């Protein structure tokens, strides 16, 4: 366990940097959320280390995903990652290019509408039948006409009559079969539609991972990563084959595995032998980690990255999610929030920003904004690193001496890429792309 990473700060810290520069590191208002990471033996810390030390798992945390906040379940929060094991399977392109796929999609929408209408009709006719039967009830008519009867008495009579008059219940029961068939049809069609919708993200996630872990040949690496992880989080998978439905015109292969010890991610459909298997990987986190996953925040990813680079031999201390101030002639300047603040052994300041943004233009805009804020706050930083969800094949150096952007691919060999930027004499990988 590494003791140089500080996600939780007990008190503010003054740091003397090279060149007679000084900074002050303070807590942000979010500090209490990081408290469980101060205990090196806590479950949350174990989970973080498990991810930080696994090249594949830390990449997965940056993939496209959806968070569901559950209520009254052991795991307060579930993150769903769409994935497919064959990066060449691009359902969206098939749908755009193939007329038979378009026709099948239209038919799916029609079937869904029709089944929905059928359900509504069954419910409406059941209600209409009940009203008709009640209206035929002479006792109810008498009660309704009477001025002295309370609503309570009328309702009591209606309830009694439903219980005693088996005609009403039998009539409703006779429609159950038709109702169930339509409900099943709605469920099946809705499920296929949902997988069509997530197929684009599944493809993008697969392409992003494939840059460092060749799929499907190296899929065992993903399986091993998840298997280590299930000690601490709940793991469920759900799989559906779009090839069954769109190529073979058959009801699709569909499988759900709950609370598994290891992950099962087949590459080929056992029903149609196609490659159209789309997986949903659902990770359920305990609340101490779940609270780090607020919408649009990257707090969990920040702690993971900090731990992943903490063994680099030029790193002295790493502070996660802190407010930093320049201190000039004893005066504390305006503060600025920094995702990861690294102090090197030669007392230089390296800043890292972590984002699950994947759009290059948005990332560049974010960098410009941050650079201006850092300049305004007079922060004496040596270099800046951006860790992003972009599927860049090579990193981008925005400013040849200051800022470098990494994508999902670089998280796999994070130490080497960071070394290459901060301490190039120690690095093995010389791959680079410079954009001034």
């Amino acid at each position, binding site marked *: 366990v590494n003791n140089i990473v500080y996600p939780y700060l007990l008190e503010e810290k003054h740091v003397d940097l090279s060149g007679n520069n000084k900074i002050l590191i303070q807590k942000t208002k979010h500090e209490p959320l990081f408290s469980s990471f101060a205990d090196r033996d806590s479950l949350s810390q174990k989970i973080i280390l498990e991810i930080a030390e696994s090249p594949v798992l830390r990449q997965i945390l940056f993939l496209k995903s959806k968070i569901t906040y559950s209520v009254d379940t052991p795991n307060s929060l579930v993150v769903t990652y769409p994935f497919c094991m064959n990066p060449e399977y691009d359902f969206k392109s098939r749908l755009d290019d193939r007329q038979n796929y378009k026709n099948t999609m239209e038919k799916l929408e029609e079937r869904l509408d029709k089944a929905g209408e059928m359900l509504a009709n069954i419910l409406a006719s059941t209600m209409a039948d009940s009203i008709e039967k009640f209206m035929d009830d002479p006792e109810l008519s008498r009660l309704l006409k009477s001025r002295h009867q309370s609503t309570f008495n009328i309702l009591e009579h209606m309830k009694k009559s439903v219980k005693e008059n088996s005609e009403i219940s039998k009539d409703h029961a006779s429609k159950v079969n038709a109702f169930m068939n339509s409900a099943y049809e709605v469920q099946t069609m809705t499920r296929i539609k949902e997988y069509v919708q997530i197929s684009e993200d599944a493809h993008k996630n697969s392409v992003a991972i494939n840059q460092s872990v060749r799929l499907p040949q190296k899929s065992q690496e993903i399986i091993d990563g998840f298997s280590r992880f299930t000690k601490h989080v709940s793991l469920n998978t759900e799989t559906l084959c779009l090839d069954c439905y769109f190529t073979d015109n058959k009801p699709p292969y569909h499988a759900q595995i709950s609370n598994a010890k290891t992950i099962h991610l087949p590459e080929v459909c056992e029903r149609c032998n196609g490659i159209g298997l789309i997986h949903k990987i659902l990770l359920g986190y305990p609340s101490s980690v779940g*609270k780090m996953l607020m919408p*649009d925040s990257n707090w969990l990813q920040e702690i993971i990255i900090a731990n992943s680079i903490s063994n680099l031999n030029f790193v002295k201390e790493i502070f996660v999610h802190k407010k930093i101030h320049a201190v000039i002639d004893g005066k504390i300047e305006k503060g*600025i929030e920094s995702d990861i603040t690294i102090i090197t052994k030669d007392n230089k300041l390296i800043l890292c920003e972590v984002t699950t943004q994947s759009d290059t233009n948005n990332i560049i805009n974010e960098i410009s904004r941050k650079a201006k804020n850092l300049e305004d706050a007079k922060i004496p930083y040596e270099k800046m690193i951006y860790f992003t969800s972009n599927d860049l094949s090579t990193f981008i150096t925005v400013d040849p001496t200051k800022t470098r952007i990494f994508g999902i691919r670089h998280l796999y060999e994070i130490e080497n890429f960071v070394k290459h930027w901060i301490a190039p004499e120690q690095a093995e990988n010389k791959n680079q792309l410079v954009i001034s």
Partner: protein
Amino acid sequence: MTNIIEQPLVSYEIMSRADSAEGVLFTELINDKILIARHENLDNLVAAIQRLIGLGMIEIEPVNDEEDGKDYRLFLSKTGSSLLDRPHT
């Protein structure tokens, strides 16, 4: 808490599950419709926000604070508004 007790349908749903942060948060939301969440116990507040999102009662919008990390602006959701019989903002 008065506002919650005056709303029986919501009070059952929220109070039966609530810890104090959730109750405080929801009371403030009912009063103000929109607020930036603040609470002395941030752990409880975040759990409360996540549970209320899970129940479909609120929506949230991140607000950038360059100096001190992100804030969240909270809204009653359409479901939350209709259960409280209030216009959706």
